C-alpha cells in the first residue's frame, strides 16, 4: 500500500455537506481533496427536489453570505421559486425553490471543477489513518492512502445504510448506491458514540401518467424571487408549476390494511424518524381523525418526466405503494418509476463535537451533515461549509470559528447539536432561534459576509458588491435620520392615524417610516422626502431595520446582558467531579458533554443557574491561582461575607 498524495484537507463525500466543505477549504487556500464513490452523484438531491423553505432558506442565505455554492446553484437550477410567509413579517419570510436535479448537479459540479486548489478523486473511503491519536489521512477501497492534516467526513445516509421496502431490506447508501460498511465498522471500532436514525422518501411518478385536470395548480411567485445575494432572475431556467392533490378514505384503508407488512409498524426499523416528516402510514395512524392529507406533486426537472409526490413518503411494500398511489385523485393511472423506501443509517452523537465540528475524540477529524444527526440539504450544506472553514483554520493553526446563536441560524444549529444532541433527525425551524427577529434572510450578508471575508471564503466580487450595498444602506439611513418634515405640510391622509397633537411637530423620515401605515415607497413619494434609493435590496433593508428597530434593540440588550458569560471559555481540563456545590446530575452532564463555553453549559439540560455560579467561581479561582491569590486575599479578608443580598 502506498501513500499517493499529501493534502491539507480531505473531504469524504460529495453531497451537500461535502461539496461546501471542499469548496470552503479550497477557497481559504488549502490544498484540498474531495473523495466520493461516484462523480455522477456530486450535489445529488436524494430526496425532494427543492432547496430552502422556512428556516432552511435562512441557512441557504447564510451559506451564500459566506461565499458558499448552494444559493447560486439553486438560482441556476430553480424551476419554481416562492417566498413563503410573504404576507407575514420579514423575519419569517423564506425563499424556497424547486430545482431541476440535473441542472443542480451540473451547477455544483461546475463550481467544483473550477475551484482552484481543489482536486477530486473517485474512490470510496474505507478507513481513517490515525497517528498519535490524531487523524493523518484516509485509506480508500482499493487501499490507496492519502494523507491530510484535517479530514471532513460527510457520509450522509451511507454509513451502514439499510434500505427497507416492506419487510424486505437490503444494504444501500441510497437507492442505487452502495453503503459504506467498512468505514462504518471502523468508526464503530473507534468507540465514538454511535446511534441509528431513519428517514424515508416517496415513490416517484411518471408525469405522463398523471391527470392534472382535477388538481390545484401552484405557480411560482411573480416577480420570480432570487436566492443568492449575487443572483439574477435571468439565471433561472424555464419555470414550472407544482400541483396539489389529496389522499382520501380509500387511500387510508389501503394503508391500514398493509400495516402488517410495514417495517415501521412491525418493529423491523429501530432507527428514530423525524416527527415533522412522517411517512404517510404514520400520518394516517397518528391522525386518524383526518380524512385526507395534502400532497404536492413537484416536477423533478425540465428534461425528465418524473414527479416527486411530496407528502406520501412510505416504506410499505411495493404492491401497497402502487395501490395507494392509484387511489389518489389524478393518479388513478399513475406509473411509479421508483419505489419509495425508508433508510436507516449510523450517526454519531453530536455532543461529541466541538463547535468547530471537530470531533473531541480524534483531533483533526471533522463531521458534517447527516452523520451528526441532522436532516435536510441546507442543514448539511451549512455544516459542511463550517467544517471546511474550521478544517482550513486548523491547518493554518488559527483559532476555530463558529457564529453565535445571536449571529446566525448556523450558530443555532451547531449550538443545538453540540449542547443538546438529537433524538430524531434535526431540522431547522425559525422557532428554534430565540433571536429570530434579528436572524433574517434579508440581512444574512450584513450578519456574515464581513466575517467570511476575514476568514477568506468571500471572493473579491462578492465583497465589492456587499461593500457597495452596505454603504448605500448606511447612506440612506443617515439621510432618513437627518431629513425632517412637518406632517401638516403634507397632502391629505399621507400620514393618517397620527394624533393631531403629534402632528404639530416635525418628524424625521425614519420616525415616519416606523409607522405601520407607511412603507419605504410611500415615504419616499412624500413631498420633500424623496428621491429614495433605486436598489430594491437596499430599500428593503432600510425599511425592515426601521420597522423592527424597537424589537431589535430589545434583543440586543438581551444579548449584551448575557454576552459576557456566554462566551467565557471553560478550560478543557476541568475536573467536574471535584467541584463543590455541583449537583450529581450537573456534574455528570458537564463531565459527559464538556461544554466549551459557559453559555453552552447553561443550555445543557440539568445544568442549573446555581451550577453556572459554581462554574464562574471555579473559573475565577483558577485565574487567581495562576497569578497568586495573596493580594486579593488580604484586602478581601476585612470584608464580612455576611453582607450579601
Amino acid at each position: 500500500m502506498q501513500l499517493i498524495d499529501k493534502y491539507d484537507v480531505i473531504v469524504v463525500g460529495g453531497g451537500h455537506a461535502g461539496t461546501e466543505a471542499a469548496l470552503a477549504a479550497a477557497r481559504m487556500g488549502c490544498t484540498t481533496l474531495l473523495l466520493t464513490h461516484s462523480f455522477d452523484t456530486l450535489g445529488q438531491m436524494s430526496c425532494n427536489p427543492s432547496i430552502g423553505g422556512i428556516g432552511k432558506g435562512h441557512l441557504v442565505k447564510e451559506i451564500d453570505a459566506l461565499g458558499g455554492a448552494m444559493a447560486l446553484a439553486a438560482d441556476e437550477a430553480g424551476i419554481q421559486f416562492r417566498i413563503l410567509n410573504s404576507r407575514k413579517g420579514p423575519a419569517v419570510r423564506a425563499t424556497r425553490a424547486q430545482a431541476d436535479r440535473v441542472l443542480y448537479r451540473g451547477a455544483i459540479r461546475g463550481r467544483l471543477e473550477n475551484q482552484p486548489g481543489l482536486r477530486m478523486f473517485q474512490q470510496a473511503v474505507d478507513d481513517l489513518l490515525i497517528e498519535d491519536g490524531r487523524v493523518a489521512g484516509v485509506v480508500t477501497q482499493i487501499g490507496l492512502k492519502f494523507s491530510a492534516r484535517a479530514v471532513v467526513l460527510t457520509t450522509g445516509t451511507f454509513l451502514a445504510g439499510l434500505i427497507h421496502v416492506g419487510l424486505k431490506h437490503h444494504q444501500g447508501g441510497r437507492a442505487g448506491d452502495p453503503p459504506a460498511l467498512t468505514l462504518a465498522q471502523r468508526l464503530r471500532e473507534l468507540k465514538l458514540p454511535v446511534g441509528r436514525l431513519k428517514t424515508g422518501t416517496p415513490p416517484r411518478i411518471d408525469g405522463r401518467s398523471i391527470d392534472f385536470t382535477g388538481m390545484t395548480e401552484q405557480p411560482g411567485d411573480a416577480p420570480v424571487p432570487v436566492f443568492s445575494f449575487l443572483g439574477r432572475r435571468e439565471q433561472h431556467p424555464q419555470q414550472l408549476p407544482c400541483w396539489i392533490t389529496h389522499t382520501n378514505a380509500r387511500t387510508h384503508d389501503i394503508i391500514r390494511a398493509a400495516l402488517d407488512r410495514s417495517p415501521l409498524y412491525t418493529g423491523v426499523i429501530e432507527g428514530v424518524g423525524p416527527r415533522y416528516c412522517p411517512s404517510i402510514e404514520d400520518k394516517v395512524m397518528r391522525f386518524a381523525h383526518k380524512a385526507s392529507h395534502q400532497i404536492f406533486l413537484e416536477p423533478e426537472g425540465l428534461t425528465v418526466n418524473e414527479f416527486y409526490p411530496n407528502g406520501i413518503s412510505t416504506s410499505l411494500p411495493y404492491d401497497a405503494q402502487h395501490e395507494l398511489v392509484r387511489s389518489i385523485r389524478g393518479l388513478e393511472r399513475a406509473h411509479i418509476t421508483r419505489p419509495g423506501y425508508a433508510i436507516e443509517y449510523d450517526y454519531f452523537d453530536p455532543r461529541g463535537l466541538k463547535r468547530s465540528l471537530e470531533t473531541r475524540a480524534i483531533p483533526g477529524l471533522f463531521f458534517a451533515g447527516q452523520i451528526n444527526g441532522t436532516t435536510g440539504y441546507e442543514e448539511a450544506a451549512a455544516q459542511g461549509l463550517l467544517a471546511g472553514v474550521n478544517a482550513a483554520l486548523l491547518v493554518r493553526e488559527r483559532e476555530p470559528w463558529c457564529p453565535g446563536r445571536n449571529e446566525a441560524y448556523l450558530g443555532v444549529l451547531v449550538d443545538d447539536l453540540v449542547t443538546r444532541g438529537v433524538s430524531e433527525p434535526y431540522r431547522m425551524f425559525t422557532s428554534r432561534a430565540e433571536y429570530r427577529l434579528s436572524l433574517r434572510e434579508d440581512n444574512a450578508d450584513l450578519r456574515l459576509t464581513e466575517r467570511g471575508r476575514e476568514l477568506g471564503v468571500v471572493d473579491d466580487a462578492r465583497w465589492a458588491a456587499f461593500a457597495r450595498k452596505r454603504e448605500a444602506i448606511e447612506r440612506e439611513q443617515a439621510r432618513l435620520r437627518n431629513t425632517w418634515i412637518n406632517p401638516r405640510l403634507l397632502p391629505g391622509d399621507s400620514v393618517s392615524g397620527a394624533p393631531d397633537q403629534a402632528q404639530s411637530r416635525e418628524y424625521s423620515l425614519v420616525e415616519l417610516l416606523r409607522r405601520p401605515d407607511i412603507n419605504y415607497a410611500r415615504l419616499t413619494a412624500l413631498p420633500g422626502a424623496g428621491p429614495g434609493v433605486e436598489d430594491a435590496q437596499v430599500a428593503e433593508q432600510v425599511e425592515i431595520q426601521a420597522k423592527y428597530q424597537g424589537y431589535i434593540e430589545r434583543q440586543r440588550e438581551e444579548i449584551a446582558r448575557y454576552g459576557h458569560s456566554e462566551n467565557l471559555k471553560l478550560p478543557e481540563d476541568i475536573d467536574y467531579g471535584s467541584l463543590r456545590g455541583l449537583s450529581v446530575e450537573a456534574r455528570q452532564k458537564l463531565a459527559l458533554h464538556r461544554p466549551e463555553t459557559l453559555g453552552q453549559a447553561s443550555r445543557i439540560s440539568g445544568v442549573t443557574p446555581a451550577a453556572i455560579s459554581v462554574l464562574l467561581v471555579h473559573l475565577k479561582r483558577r485565574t487567581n491561582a495562576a497569578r497568586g491569590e495573596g493580594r486579593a486575599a488580604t484586602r478581601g479578608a476585612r470584608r464580612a461575607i455576611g453582607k450579601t443580598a
Partner: protein
Amino acid sequence: MTGSDIIAAVSTAPGRGGIGVVRVSGPRLKALISGIVRKRVSPRRATLADFIDSHGSVIDRGIALYFPAPRSYTGEDVLELHGHGGPVVLQLLLKRCVELGARPAQPGEFTRRAYLNDKIDLAQAESVVDLIEAATTEAARSAMRSLQGAFSQRIGELLDGLVELRTLVEAALDFPDEDVELIRQSDGAGRLSRLKAKLADVLSVSQQGSLLREGMRVVLAGQPNVGKSSLLNLLAGEELAIVTDIAGTTRDAIRQSVSIRGVPAHIIDTAGLRPSSDPVERLGIARTWAAIEQANVVVLLVDAAQGDVAADQDILRRLPAGLPRLTVMNKIDLLARAPALERGKDGSTVWLSAKTGAGVEFLREALLEAVGWQGGGAEGLFMARERHVHALELAQQHLEQATRQTESLELFAEELRAVQTALGSITGEFTPDDLLGEIFKRFCIGK
C-alpha cells in the same frame, strides 16, 4: 449570570428596624443615582438627601453612599441608600431602582461579584459556593412548596393556555404550506384574552401568598386630629404615635406591624393630608402619597360627629383608582352609637371608637375583606416570593404588548416568547424543542 447588568436588593434583614439599606451594584450607576437621589452625591461621602420616585415625589429621606468602581464591595459601582427601616419604604426604594434599570439580585449575587472582581479571597469564595448551594436548596424547597396544591394547578392551566397559543402561532409561522386546519379555525383573540384573565388570576393569588409572606400594607388617612394615631395604637396595642390635640402633630408616616388574625399588616399612620407651608410637614405629606401608591388598602378615618368633609372627598378623588377603600367612622362613643360594619359598593364602613376599643373587631374583619384575604386554607395558598410576583408582572406586561401586535404574527410570537421566558423563571425552562413537540403532537405536519 454575571457582569454587565445592575442588581439591587434590600440588604438589611426584613422586618422593623431603625434603618434599612437598599444596595445597588453594577457598571455605571450615575444615571440611576440621579434618578433616585435628589442631590449631588460625592464618592465615599455620606450625603443626606431625598430619595424620589418617578414623579419626583419623596419616598424617604436618608443617607446615600456612593462607591465608584473599583473601590467598592463588589468592585463595581455601588450605591447604598440608608432609609428608614420598614418594608414599605424599602420596597418603594427597590421598586424605584428596578424602574431605573436594575433587576432584583439573586441570593449571594453581590458576594459573587465581589469574588469575581477580586474583592474577597478564596476562603470567602468557598463560603460563596456554600451560600449559593444553601440558597438553591432553600429555593428548591420553597419552589416545591409553591408548586403544590391549588397554585400549581392554576399556573399549570396558565402554561397550558400559553403553550397552546404559541403552538398555533409557531405552527403558522414555521409551516405555512401545511393544511393545518386548526390554525385557521383557532380563535386567537379569544385565547389571548382567556390567557390574560388567567394570568391576572394567578397574579392575584400569588399576591395573596405574598400578602401572607410580606403582609398587607394599610394606609391610615384622614383629616388631622380625627384619631388616626389612637386607632393605630389600638391595633398595635402600644403607645406609638404621639397623641395630642394639636392638629398636625403626626408629621411622619409611622410604620407599625401588627398581626390581624395571622396576616401581617404594616400600618402606616399618615401625616395629616392638608396644605402646609412647613417644609418638614410637607415632606411628611409627600411620603404619605408615595406610601398610598404602594398600599393594599386605604383606611379613611372620619370623625363620626362631623361626617366626611369636603377635604375627605378631595382625598378620595386623589386615591389610585381600584385601590380598596375602607371608611372608619371614629368617635362613636361621643354619639352613643353602636359599633357596626356596613358593606357598600364603594367599600365598607366601620363604626367604632378608637378611644374605647368598641368595634375594633369589625375593623379587623373589614381589613381582611378589603385586601381579598380568603382566610382558612392558608396552606393551599401560594407562598409567592417577590421574585415570583415580579416574574408574573413581567409576563403580564408582555402579554399586554402582545395584544397590540396582533397584526404582525412574528412580533406577537416574540411577545409570547417573552411571556414564556418570564414564567420560565418560576416554572423551569421550556425549550423550543418542547414547543416543536407540541406542534407535532397536535398537527399532522410534514410533506
